[in-house]
């Protein structure tokens, strides 16, 4: 088995033995989404309009919440040093870790989103498009997030700093993903938004692992 699959396996195994790392972001996602109907209005007309926005903002914050842990443990216990000093490609090792992070935080959110969509009176077409945008754009969240996580890895109590670094880069994703869903609700074409999200994914896929690798090396100095 090659080292990149081993890295993925290792991260999944560690997370499954410590399930709170998977459950906490998911619970945050469910709780924050379900608070909106209570605070704004339980009316179907209002909720179906803002449903996509609520679900997208909540999932974005849930991913952000989990990003701190991406490199933190490996930095603390010295595994990161071993990764840097090994002859394997550091960007690819990081990509494996990012993929594990996506599987552990975003996939549960994507699977749960139709349920919360129904709960917020989103129609079938809206739920379908919501899931497509989540599937297309959450990998970008993990990829871009890894840049921030690797920059702050050596800094104590850096949660706020991570949000400040990363959230501006998340904004375009948020805008295009939610506008795709609301346009679909009106029966308008949404190819433009989906192409943009796909472009964003491609861009972050080819750049984020390399930038993260450089940032990690700087953090380890």
């Amino acid at each position, binding site marked *: 088995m090659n080292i990149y699959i*081993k890295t993925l396996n290792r991260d999944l195994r560690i997370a499954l033995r410590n399930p709170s790392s998977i459950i906490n972001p998911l619970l945050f996602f469910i709780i924050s989404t379900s608070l909106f109907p209570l605070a704004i209005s339980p009316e179907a007309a209002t909720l179906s309009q803002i449903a996509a926005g609520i679900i997208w903002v909540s999932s974005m914050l849930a991913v952000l919440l989990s990003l701190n842990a991406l490199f933190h443990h490996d930095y603390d216990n010295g*595994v990161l040093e071993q990764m840097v*000093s090994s002859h394997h490609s550091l960007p690819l090792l990081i990509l494996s870790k990012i993929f594990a992070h996506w599987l552990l935080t975003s996939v549960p959110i994507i699977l749960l989103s139709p349920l919360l969509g129904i709960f917020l009176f989103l129609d079938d077409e809206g739920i379908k498009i919501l899931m497509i945008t989540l599937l297309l754009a959450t990998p970008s969240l993990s990829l871009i997030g890894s840049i921030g996580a690797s920059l702050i890895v050596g800094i104590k109590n850096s949660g706020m700093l991570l949000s400040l670094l990363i959230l501006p880069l998340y904004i375009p994703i948020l805008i295009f993903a939610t506008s795709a869903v609301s346009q679909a609700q009106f029966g308008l074409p949404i190819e433009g938004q989906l192409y943009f999200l796909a472009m964003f994914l491609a861009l972050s896929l080819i750049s984020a692992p390399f930038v993260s690798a450089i940032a990690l090396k700087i953090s380890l100095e």
Partner: protein
Amino acid sequence: MSSLIIRELDCQRGYNQLFSHLSFQLNAGEVLRITGTNGSGKTSLLRMLAGISAHEHGEINWGNYSVNSNEYQQEIFYLGHQAALNGELSSLENLEFLSALNKTADQQLLIQALADIGLKGYEEEYCANLSAGQKRRVILAGLFVSTAKIWLLDEPFTALDPIGVSLVEHQIQQHCQQGGLCLFTSHQESVLVNQQVLAL
């Protein structure tokens, strides 16, 4: 057999110049013990040699290869201050991953290495439940099965009992007899033959 050549190496941490114009050569089969007071740059030197920290001045070469080349990285084993173990994984799982990062060794060899270093019966134990010395032994087991030529050991004797210390010394000796070379930091006197001492 190539030798490790360090030329005019400088190290600065913050405003402190830890060492400057450091040059030495280590040939195959030689051991270098790096001594020095706390904060004199022993760990910094090893991290530079491991390619973890960048060096601004000077050169680090092994034969024709520089420190950042893939060929060099394949030949080093770096043992840092921390154990490089995850508490949620068993000693065997941790060891498998670490040895895969360096060079792949098969599972049977790793189980044998754990037994050799006195951790028989602890293969499935989570590393969170191991003592400091036992954690150290897990990563040392990884060192002993590695095929890396250059061993960079930062305080390898920390937390080890006298039997563990002599075991490590024996392995270093054997490694060097087979043409490897080893640099380690230690405050303790050791009895290794062919040993040179670098005082920072």
